[in-house]
């Protein structure tokens, strides 16, 4: 800017020079502003373009970078987790698995198979400690998800040599569909056929059950298998494995501390309907009597008072109870781990984004947690052993724990014999491994939650609207280690004696509706098969049929097949059943006493004696069949007997007979309430 030039224009404050001054400034400013606007437009355009560019880049980069091998090498990964996902679940699992890798000194990445050339799998062995994991969802009728279609086609057509490739597959499926987990199963099988090495068993997640749980269970055993395979260990300090952080409360308001509630604080003191799993009702036990006359077992009949709870039920429904662990067992924990069990603490999730803030209601005491919230009686799963191993100071014990948690054949066998078959629970393990002394809070993090137990209701709401009856056998047995193991809920129920000091005879419960129902029309015949405690729902059914008869309804044939060990020992509800028979409510009472003679006589043997009658009821009488009790053997044997009857009297071959029975099930005429 030439001073002189400007000077001359500015100096005289007269109008003419002022005019020119103004116009000069005007021009100056206008041109500046114009220039500024031009700049602005320029600038703005750039701003708009920049967001575009990154987008374009990501679209084109897969085409250029379609080798996941190169990407893995570039980013230092050794584990790739491919996902076949339609709704995002498999993708989420893949992300979680790839994040897990870090804990074991490995580095993972999740990948969409649609974006890469999967034939590169044959090259994965170029990377040290490499592994390909597949989270494959099955879609529709056994089909791959959209993003896995190409991969599926390639697997079918290609004749690749995948030797050197290590893999594992987790399948996401749904048991209500015929082709359960078809994609997961196919990928697992095909990869092996192509020469790849499976390092962990196929996981089959069932969305009809609990897919998340299936995944977690698989994952917890998967990583130990991987570590074993690569000879690595979970790295770093204990804190890197912990999911929760312990906070001990020294000065806490006891009103804010949980004392065994399942949901809302003080929900056991201030009971408010509606009552359900998160808000159980404290029912008073009004009766608790032994049902068997002899033998070593203890079978019992309990009655729970549900007056004023607004709880309704129907015969065939289940009652859920929340049991408590045995106090002496809990005390032993305190002694063996040298902890004051009445310490009040919270375990807070280190992952702040997780919905699950605590593993169980917190703040609470160790005593409460071990009594009401944690399962301390089942043999622990391998992942628990794996995490505890670090605390064993004796190398022999530590090795043994690690071995049992591994996926080697020897390790699995050791776990099976030393833990499962010997029925060693966590306390037994602590006792038998004296150098293993984990911190109690880590143990609380690892142990699974104490589950509610379900019992088939043994009463009819028509006859007992304010009372729910339970028929159960206490579980008690001696293990190979000479210990006496007791079932949690059954022993707890056994000790619920009515009218004892207030609290002791209370049972937190709720009703879970079932689909096990008498036929709509009372005139429809029913054939009930329920040996042992399987008789429970049928007592309710028979009570209801009696009530219907009293109401003047026409009640159809009511047939019962029951079984027990000895007539004089454990014939449950003997008198009640005799009475019902006498009154004509029970039209046929068939009882098998398995041990009263040399050969075993079970319910199915009695059914076989009445083939013709049963066929008539089922085929002509529209009878409904009900089976309740043991799932493993009895239910299967009974079903086979029905196939026999149908084949013989219905003049069908085996396949047709099976079809006939399966159809009865579809139409709700053959119902099962079985447990294992």
């Amino acid at each position, binding site marked *: 800017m030439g001073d002189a030039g400007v000077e001359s224009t500015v100096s005289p404050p007269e109008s003419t020079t002022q005019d020119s001054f103004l116009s000069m400034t005007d021009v100056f400013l206008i041109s500046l502003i114009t220039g*500024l606007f031009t700049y602005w437009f320029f600038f703005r355009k750039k701003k708009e373009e920049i967001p575009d560019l990154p987008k374009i880049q990501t679209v084109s980069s897969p085409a250029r970078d379609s080798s996941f091998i190169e990407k893995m090498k570039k980013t230092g990964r050794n584990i790739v987790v491919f996902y076949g996902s339609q709704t995002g679940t498999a993708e989420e699992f893949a992300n979680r698995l790839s994040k897990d890798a870090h804990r074991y000194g490995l580095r993972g990445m999740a990948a969409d198979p649609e974006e890469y050339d999967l034939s590169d799998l044959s090259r994965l062995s170029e990377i040290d400690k490499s592994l390909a994991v597949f989270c494959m969802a099955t879609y529709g009728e056994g089909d791959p998800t959209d993003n896995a279609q190409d991969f599926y086609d390639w697997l079918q057509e290609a004749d690749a040599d995948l030797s050197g490739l290590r893999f594992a597959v987790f399948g996401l499926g749904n048991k209500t569909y015929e082709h359960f987990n078809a994609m997961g199963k196919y990928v697992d099988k095909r990869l092996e056929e192509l020469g790849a090495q499976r390092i962990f068993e196929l996981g089959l997640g069932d969305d009809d059950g609990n897919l998340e749980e299936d995944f977690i269970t698989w994952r917890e055993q998967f990583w130990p298998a991987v570590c074993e395979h690569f000879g690595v260990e979970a790295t770093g300090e204990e804190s890197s494995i912990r999911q929760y952080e312990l906070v001990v409360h020294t000065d806490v308001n006891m009103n804010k501390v949980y004392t065994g509630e399942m949901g809302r604080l003080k929900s056991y003191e201030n009971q408010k309907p509606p009552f359900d799993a998160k808000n159980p009702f404290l029912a008073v036990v009004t009766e608790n009597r032994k049902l068997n006359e002899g033998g070593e077992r203890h079978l019992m009949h309990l009655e729970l008072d549900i007056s004023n709870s607004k709880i309704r039920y129907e015969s065939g429904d289940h009652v859920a109870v929340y049991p408590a662990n045995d106090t002496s067992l809990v005390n032993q924990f305190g002694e063996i781990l040298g902890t004051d069990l009445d310490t009040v603490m919270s375990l807070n999730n280190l992952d702040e984004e997780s919905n699950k803030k605590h593993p169980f209601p917190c703040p609470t005491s160790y005593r409460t947690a071990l009594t009401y919230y944690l399962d301390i009686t089942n043999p622990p799963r391998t992942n628990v052993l794996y995490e505890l191993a670090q605390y064993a100071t004796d190398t022999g014990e530590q090795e043994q724990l690690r071995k049992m948690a591994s996926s080697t054949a020897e390790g699995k066998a050791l776990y099976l014999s030393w833990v499962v078959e010997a029925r060693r629970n966590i306390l037994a393990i602590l006792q038998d491994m004296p150098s293993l002394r984990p911190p109690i809070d880590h143990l609380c993090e690892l142990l699974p939650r104490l589950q509610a137990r379900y019992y088939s209701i043994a009463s009819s709401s028509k006859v007992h609207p304010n009372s729910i009856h339970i028929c159960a056998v206490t579980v008690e047995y001696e293990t190979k280690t000479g210990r006496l193991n007791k079932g949690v809920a059954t022993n707890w129920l056994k000790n619920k004696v009515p009218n004892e000091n207030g609290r002791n005879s209370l049972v937190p419960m709720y009703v879970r509706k079932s689909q096990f129902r008498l036929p709509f029309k009372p005139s429809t015949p029913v054939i009930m098969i329920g040996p042992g405690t399987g008789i429970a729902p049928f007592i309710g059914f028979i009570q209801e049929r009696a009530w219907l008869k009293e109401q003047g309804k026409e009640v159809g044939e009511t047939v019962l097949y029951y079984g027990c060990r000895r007539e004089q020992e454990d014939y449950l509800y003997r008198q009640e059943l005799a009475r019902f028979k006498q009154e004509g409510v029970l039209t046929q009472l068939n009882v098998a006493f398995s041990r009263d003679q040399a050969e075993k006589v079970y319910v199915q043997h009695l059914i076989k004696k009445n083939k013709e009658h049963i066929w008539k009821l089922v085929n002509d009488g529209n009878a409904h069949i009900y089976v309740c009790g043991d799932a493993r053997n009895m239910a299967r044997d009974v079903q086979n007997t029905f196939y026999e009857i149908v084949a013989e009297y219905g003049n069908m071959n085996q396949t047709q007979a099976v079809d006939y029975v*399966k159809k009865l099930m579809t139409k709700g005429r053959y119902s099962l309430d079985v447990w294992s």
Partner: protein
Amino acid sequence: METSQPHSAESMSQDLSELLKEATKEVHEQAENTPFMKNFQKGQVSLHEFKLVTASLYFIYSALEEEIERNKDNPVYAPVYFPAELHRKAALEKDLEYFYGSNWRAEIPCPEATQKYVERLHCVGRKHPELLVAHAYTRYLGDLSGGQVLKKIAQKALQLPSTGEGLAFFTFDGVSNATKFKQLYRSRMNALEMDHATKKSVLEEAKKAFLLNIQVFEALQKLVSKSQENGHAVQPKAELRTRNVNKWHENGPAAGKESERTSRMQADMVTTSPLVRWILALGFIATTVAVGLFAIKQSAARGSRPFPCLLQALLTH
């Protein structure tokens, strides 16, 4: 999906449950293959569409359940009366409040196809109650089967909270096992006293019910494309695999939350460029003007006139 049974002597069965399944096979496939359903299954559904579906379902179920209540003791319906397990009206009201806010009753549209369906339901319930089971079967059993898969799809596609808001319709709290419940329901259908002629009418009514549903899907499809043409603010169809973390659903009341979320999402997408733009523009102008005036001031060496006076001089001219 159930396993299809091979045909044998049993196909002569007169069981209503089996006859219904057979009779509606074709029309069921038709419903699954409407563009709307096909897109839904792929996760290509917008929030706008989903809200419209929920609104139509509300009208349909309100009518259906009103007629069910009317006929609950009528032997032509009583055996299949399962209000605690099946009824959807309350759940739909919860969902509508979540999507539209507390004023949902005034805001929800009722397309003609939905109205037609509602009228048929009232007609059946009042004049032909023996056919009501056809409508209950068509909707409820469908909801219990494929409905569960649709729930997952909707949750991911619309990024609805995992706590279930907006999806109460798909959640059957009273049914612990859908497969077993369907078996029980079938046994109840078969317990209905029905002569051959009535059975045939029920089959026809079930087919009609499916067609009414198809017409509703088609009407909704048209509604959505029309509003897109008119340039309404179209929520982009969320691709299934975008995984934004939604941190804000856990707090605050349900009412109006959804619209808040939408505007926040859109705000996020446009980023902060307008604001930055304005700041920079003003800054530029200010700097340039300041520089310019400073230069002018500099040149006014003859008696340094204070900056403000110069400005004043400029302004008065």
